[in-house]
């Protein structure tokens, strides 16, 4: 399959758009008509053909434009990419994992040629053809983590594992849902999760940490998380809150369908073999309400989930003020019919919206 890469922006004129193909494969995060936190993790060993779960690192029509947006964010704020000195080996681990995975999963787009430690990496969509020496930092234009994550969609946190805890010791974070690598760097798992409401009382973090610490080599895991974003912004960072936070007040009943986006993170977890660190890719997918509601099942379900979500979660996710307007819009897509279980849209079998 060859991918047509979009020419689009995630800022200024917001020309970002999803094709019909991208809408259909959007990772809708609600498997039932209600939502509460859970450690909803499963193995990341493929998925249905064409779905975002199929490949180890999904590449889609937004690849080239997302990489251009990342380069702009880094040019304005180099601290979005940081790696403490002991994390260089983990960076090489990540580079190897991504290069091997992408060249195997997308041979028409990426090539990796290896002769001992003499490697050559070909990235056709970005026009890159670089020979380098594996594990020799001086042979790449950036550190290994920065080099490969400037060419891979999604944010990346590299977590060092020691003292039965995980430590946020390196990362490339430019498409985040309102958290800051510069603030969190060096923190442990409990420290960086401290702002999340309710979950601590539910004992979720202790269980989640045990799960993550035990992710074995060769058996990656994945889960979904979600929030809401007004305008298709990848960079919703605390550093730039003054630029994007205000945009939440620009919603109107007329523009909400186009402007309000459901933001879904496909989080995956890989044990890195040479460093024993954990790679935590966080891939962001955006879909506007008007595109989501083209799938009758998703329209019905999104209305019910947003309507019934506890206030603390709507506040934490930053849309409590806009919730009434969202519900006015979404209620038009909820005719009360039951929805089938699971996250997939089932457009062939789900009944059309009763009008």
């Amino acid at each position, binding site marked *: 399959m060859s991918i047509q890469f979009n020419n689009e922006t995630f800022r200024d004129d917001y020309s970002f758009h999803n094709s019909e193909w991208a809408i259909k494969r959007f990772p809708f995060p609600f498997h039932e008509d209600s939502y509460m936190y859970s450690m909803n993790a499963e193995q990341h060993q493929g998925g*249905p053909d064409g*779905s975002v779960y199929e490949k180890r690192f999904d590449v889609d029509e937004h690849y080239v434009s997302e990489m251009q947006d990342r380069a702009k964010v880094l040019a304005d704020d180099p601290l979005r990419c940081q790696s403490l000195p002991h994390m260089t080996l983990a960076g090489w681990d990540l580079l190897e994992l991504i290069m091997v995975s992408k060249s195997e999963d997308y041979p028409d787009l990426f090539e990796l040629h290896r002769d001992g430690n003499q490697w050559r990496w070909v990235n056709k969509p970005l026009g890159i053809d670089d020979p380098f020496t594996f594990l020799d930092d001086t042979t790449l234009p950036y550190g290994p983590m920065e080099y490969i994550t400037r060419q891979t969609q999604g944010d990346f946190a590299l977590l060092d594992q020691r003292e039965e805890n995980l430590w946020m010791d390196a990362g490339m974070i430019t498409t985040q849902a309102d958290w800051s690598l510069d603030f969190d760097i060096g923190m442990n798992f409990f420290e960086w999760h401290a702002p999340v409401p309710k979950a601590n009382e539910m004992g979720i973090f202790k269980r989640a940490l045990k799960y993550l610490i035990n992710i074995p080599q060769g058996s990656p895991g994945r889960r979904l998380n979600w929030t809401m974003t007004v305008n298709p912004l990848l960079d919703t960072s605390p550093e730039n809150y003054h630029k994007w936070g205000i945009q939440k007040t620009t919603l109107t009943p007329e523009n909400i369908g186009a402007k309000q986006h459901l933001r879904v993170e496909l989080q995956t977890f890989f044990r890195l*073999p040479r460093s024993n660190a954990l790679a935590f890719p966080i891939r962001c997918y955006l879909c506007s309400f008007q595109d989501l509601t083209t799938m009758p099942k998703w329209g019905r379900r999104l209305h019910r989930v947003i309507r019934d979500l506890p206030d603390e979660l709507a506040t934490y996710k930053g849309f409590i003020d806009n919730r009434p307007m969202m519900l006015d819009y979404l209620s038009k897509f909820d005719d009360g019919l039951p929805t089938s279980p699971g996250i997939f849209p089932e457009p062939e079998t789900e009944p059309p919206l009763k009008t």
Partner: protein
Amino acid sequence: MSAPQKTKSGPAQIDVTVSAVVPVTEFVTRFEFTRRDGTEFPPFSGGAHTVVAMQDGTRTRLNPYSLMSDPADLSTYAISVRREDDGRGGSVFMHSQVKQGDAMTLTNPVNLFSLDLRAKKHIFFAGGIGITPFLAMIGQLELTNGNWELHYASRTPENAAYADVLLAKFPTKVHVYYSSANERIPLADVLDGQPLGTQAYACGPERLIDGVRDTAIGLGWPDSNVHSEEFLAPAAGAPFEVRLCKSDKTITVGEHESLLEALEREGVDAPFLCRGGACGQCETDVVSGAGELIHCDHWLEEEEHASGKKIMPCVSRFVGELLEIDR
């Protein structure tokens, strides 16, 4: 979340051929493996272990061994096994039955004893066969000019596996002590006055590990800078009956068998990684039990041991009428 997948709970497996069986000392033999599909092994980090599956008649033995080969050479994995004549039989099986050319199965590497890569310096304390993880750690550190030293205690020069190779290669970094010559590792001398940011690692008999930890703490080392690996072999004990709620079965755990092994024998899918009470993967809820749980793991907290609600089936046992667990 998406398509449900049914996979077995243990780590991924690698089919291998025994490529060499090399006697190292009277009691220690090295086993080298190549992949049966001809590809390279997965990279691994120093301190990682693999679980070796041994087909001993109808019984499958699963024993963890530290990978001791050079992490830079992925054509081969190697382990060194000390023959324990009074053990549970796995090491004797390896020594007496396993031959060059045999087909076996290993698991992907799992590391519960990894280097702290922040360290300015690494000090290794090995007792006897506890040398094995350090061989791979040294290989890893040598690739990056890491700063390390090794203190290795053995009974006699003849018993000190790999001491000759290490001394020849790293004469200023390796120190060997023979109890037959009344030599002991001078723990206090070694641990005192080390630069800030030094990490210490101990592997071997319990008294060596306790000695390193107690001496270091006494000298003001942070507890988190002292690392140890002690694999527990499951202890033998009186047979006991277990009711498996989910599987709707009642099974008997034999005298020389762990609860985890009994579950596997009965075809019940049970998760595991280390099989030595350290990793927490096999943690299982106890539904009821008229009797006493014999906890042998390093994983559960004291309160959890006392609660009677959790058991680690890889090493822990039960004495009493009937144990009921959530498997």
